[in-house]
């Protein structure tokens, strides 16, 4: 009988665990994995085998980093997880052609299953040196010039890969249509790079066909780029076009600077470099190129002979526009390019969003987040899915949510509020986490400083703008000496805010009287006790407790004729003289902007934490009259809601 009872309990446990596992079937590492579009046989990792991959590159530079990020991501989707069942041995030539041959020789003598050479000069060296191992190349405009073979199907038996010849004709068309009346286009490259010569040749031929002159300028090393670009700008050209020339790309910042000084439109083929200051990019995303290369590498890792795998040219014909710069320079992009310019579309991203509790702040943040996604042209259900969790204020539920979130693969894990962020950051190490509505991320243990923080986390701090409010108070009430606030010792943000306010007050020569309140019933008493201690103004910090009981403090302020300044916009309607508020709506929106940087390939660790971009000034004229004070005109004109 007793044994039966134990069995019953075990059965119940098993049944429930079974239900949970059934709902989790989608996450099994089986054949039905997400994104099984064009998988041919033999691209999946075989269990129990550890693969070794040798990676060679010219120099650590941005384009390479982006490609590699895409490559590892693509490999992971095929079951090859870097540093787990895929050991990567990477070597680079320190940017010197002379080193290319030795590193490939060295790589050939290593115990690897495949060698992945990158960039055209690297591939040349690899073809000449590597004898014992199969190879899959990538990041080359013109691999045939590098010597991999006669054609994409008839190539050397030990090498295959991905070519990425840029859409030269489309680029030139783009320049013609964006800058009407284009007569001369300038370009700059290192004439010793085979791929650049080839691109320039193709470009020149097409330009002649369309009646445009291609003005070429060649350099030998990076130190010449600045001067050469300046000279090019003097040669009466209408735009500069830079293709993926290694030398030009390494000195890209110099080119951008010269172009900005001369207001010269700069169009590139590596779309990622638009973020670095080009006007527009037409063509290649190195991230996508890396991602596209992954199945080739996988097939060779699974023993397929490179001889039988045709080389493919991969160009995704992306268009990325720097609309900010165009606006500044008065350039109008043609409509058809604007419509095509969003690289984020169609990726079907998976986002999750976790709240700690239902509050106006978290709702505002979610609203802002959804709207910002929309503003970026992303449509829910088509371009992304957003799954929302809410711990409803319960710590143990929050831990279960952390497990639920970590059980799935998300492109971005969004979180609001401090405890949620802490729990998820502790649980999830392998997905990018972007937080919003965290008052003080450093105090919350999310990093040593805003720039030095965990590598998979970034986000938006909603700490109030104490300095601005203190300035506003001082300018509105000249000669003020003492200010006061109620705070909640039980809320980490509240204490941190109080300390910050104290610091700012001290800097401005004011004395702050802060009195604690632990529950809603204590708030009014606390406010009264401050009022009786001779303060001249309330500068009420924002925390959960005083935000919900704000009106009781405002009542004390009115009864005692002490002006009330706030950090919450809503309190201005309730009678505060003025408020400088962080907008949680904007916090959500800003979090999306950060997430987009991450989606474009940036590591969250390299994106510093930021304060919410916008502070909102709100003033109340009735309250100003009642307390007989004058908020300076500059704030009133800035205010969004002056009654």
């Amino acid at each position, binding site marked *: 009988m007793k044994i039966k009872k134990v069995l019953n309990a075990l059965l119940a446990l098993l049944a*429930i665990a079974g239900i*949970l596992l059934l709902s989790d079937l989608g*996450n099994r590492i089986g054949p039905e994995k997400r994104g099984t579009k064009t998988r041919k046989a033999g691209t999946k990792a075989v269990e129990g085998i550890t693969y070794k991959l040798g990676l060679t590159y010219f120099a650590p530079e941005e384009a390479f980093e982006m490609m590699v990020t895409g490559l590892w991501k693509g490999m992971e989707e095929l079951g090859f997880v870097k540093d787990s069942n895929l050991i990567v041995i990477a070597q680079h030539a320190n940017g010197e052609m002379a080193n290319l041959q030795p590193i490939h020789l060295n790589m050939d003598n290593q115990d690897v299953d495949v060698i992945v050479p990158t960039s055209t000069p690297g591939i040349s060296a690899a073809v000449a040196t590597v004898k014992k191992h199969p190879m899959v190349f990538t990041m080359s405009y013109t691999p045939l010039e590098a010597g991999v073979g006669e054609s994409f199907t008839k190539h050397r038996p030990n090498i295959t890969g991905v070519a990425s010849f840029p859409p030269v004709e489309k680029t030139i068309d783009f320049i013609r249509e964006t800058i009407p009346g284009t007569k001369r286009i300038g370009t700059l490259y290192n004439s010793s790079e085979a791929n650049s010569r080839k691109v320039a040749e193709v470009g020149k031929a097409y330009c002649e066909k369309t009646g445009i002159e291609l003005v070429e300028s060649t350099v030998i090393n990076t130190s010449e780029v600045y001067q050469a670009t300046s000279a090019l700008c003097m040669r009466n050209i209408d735009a500069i076009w830079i293709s993926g020339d290694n030398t030009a790309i390494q000195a890209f910042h110099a080119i951008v600077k010269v172009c900005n000084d001369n207001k010269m439109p700069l169009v590139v083929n590596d779309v990622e470099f638009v973020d670095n200051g080009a006007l527009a990019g037409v063509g290649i995303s190195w991230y996508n190129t890396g991602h596209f290369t992954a199945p080739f590498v996988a097939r060779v890792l699974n023993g397929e002979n490179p001889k039988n795998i045709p080389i493919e040219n991969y160009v995704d014909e992306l268009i990325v526009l720097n609309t900010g710069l165009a606006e500044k320079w008065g350039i109008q992009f043609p409509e058809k390019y604007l419509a095509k310019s969003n690289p984020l579309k169609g990726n079907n991203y998976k986002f999750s969003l976790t709240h700690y509790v239902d509050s106006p702040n978290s709702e505002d943040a979610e609203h802002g987040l959804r709207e910002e996604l929309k503003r970026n042209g992303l449509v829910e259900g088509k371009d992304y899915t957003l799954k*929302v*969790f809410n711990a409803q204020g319960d*710590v143990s539920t929050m831990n279960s949510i952390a*497990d639920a979130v970590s059980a799935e693969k998300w492109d971005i894990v969004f979180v609001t509020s401090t405890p949620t962020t802490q729990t998820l950051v502790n649980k999830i190490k392998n997905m990018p986490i972007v937080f919003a509505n965290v008052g003080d991320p450093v105090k919350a243990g999310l990093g040593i400083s805003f720039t030095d923080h965990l590598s998979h986390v970034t986000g938006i701090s909603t700490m109030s703008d104490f300095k601005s409010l203190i300035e506003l108070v001082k300018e509105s009430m000249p000669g003020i000496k003492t200010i006061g606030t109620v705070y909640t010792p039980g809320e980490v943000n509240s204490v941190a805010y109080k300390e910050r306010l104290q610091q700012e007050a001290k800097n401005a020569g004011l004395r702050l009287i802060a009195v604690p309140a632990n529950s809603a019933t204590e708030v009014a008493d606390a406010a009264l006790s401050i009022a009786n201690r001779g303060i001249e103004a309330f500068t009420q910090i924002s925390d959960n407790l005083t935000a919900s009981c704000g009106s009781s403090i405002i009542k004390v302020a009115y009864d005692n004729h002490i002006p009330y300044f706030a950090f919450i916009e809503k309190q201005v309607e309730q009678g505060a003289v003025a408020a400088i508020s962080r907008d949680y709506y904007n916090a959500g929106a800003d979090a999306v902007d950060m997430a987009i940087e991450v989606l474009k390939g940036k590591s969250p660790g390299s994106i510093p934490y930021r304060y919410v971009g916008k502070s909102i000034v709100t003033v109340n004229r009735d309250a100003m009259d009642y307390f007989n004070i004058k908020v300076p005109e500059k704030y009133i004109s800035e205010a969004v809601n002056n009654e």
Partner: protein
Amino acid sequence: MSLLIGSFTIGLILALLALGIFISFRIFDFPDITAEGSFTFGAATAASLIVAGVNPLLSSFIAFIAGMAAGAVTGLIHTRFKINPLLAGILVMTALYSVNLHVMGKSNMPLLNETTVFTWIENFSVAVSGEGAKANVIGWEVAVKDLWLLFFCLLVIVAFCIGLWWFFKTNIGTAMRATGDNDQMIRALGVNTKAMIIIGVALSNGFIALAGAMLAQYQGFADVQMGIGMMVWGLASVIIGEAIINDNSLGFVIAGAVVGSVLFRLLVAIALRWGLNPNDLKIITALFVFIALILPGLMKNKKKLTFKRRAHA
């Protein structure tokens, strides 16, 4: 799968809480609300000590002692000053809120960069099977580290259960159980029931504080509000366990509390995994718990019915 493993782990950690609640509510029939305060007290004590550089194991042990102290105060207030047990609990719980703030010096103490008991296990896992190692568990990919964490928690809970079982079988333990069952009888036998109650409530809160200390280390921070609602969930776990095991002998009731706690976390996990409207989470959880509670009874009724029919035939 990692959701399942995570739920088991949290379920086992919170089983300590359920055991604590079980001691006060079931053994002593003492409705002890101190739990909400002592849970946080344990977390706060352990977190502060760990941040101060104390060995995490020692910190957890001190948290256990701290919880016992809190429980002893509740017991004392009740027995010496004849204050209703509910009110005694409320008093201590309320006071602990301030104590916790003082212990931590602030309301939230991150442990993300500190060495905790769980960091040790993670390091151990890295040493044994390498960084970021994954295992294949019947088709799901699982971090090996999570498996070790689960194993460790299981070990700890089993050890505590056996310890508790043994304790309640000793003379003093038997006297304690008898105090809860029939205090007049046991007083007639010359046992000091007041002392028994104090020891019992202290032990109960020691367990609860240890649960708090473990959860803080597991989730990476202690927060002054983390105890809110914990007592209710602990109680729910105990009752679910009883309903499923349905046996009054000591060993089974202890096991029931653990099973109930794990089961409860699993139910929450299912509600989460189904991705229902987040606002409905609590009602779904309540519904699941309801079903879990009535299902054993329904099954028994059905059996009886069939039996009766056969008897008639």
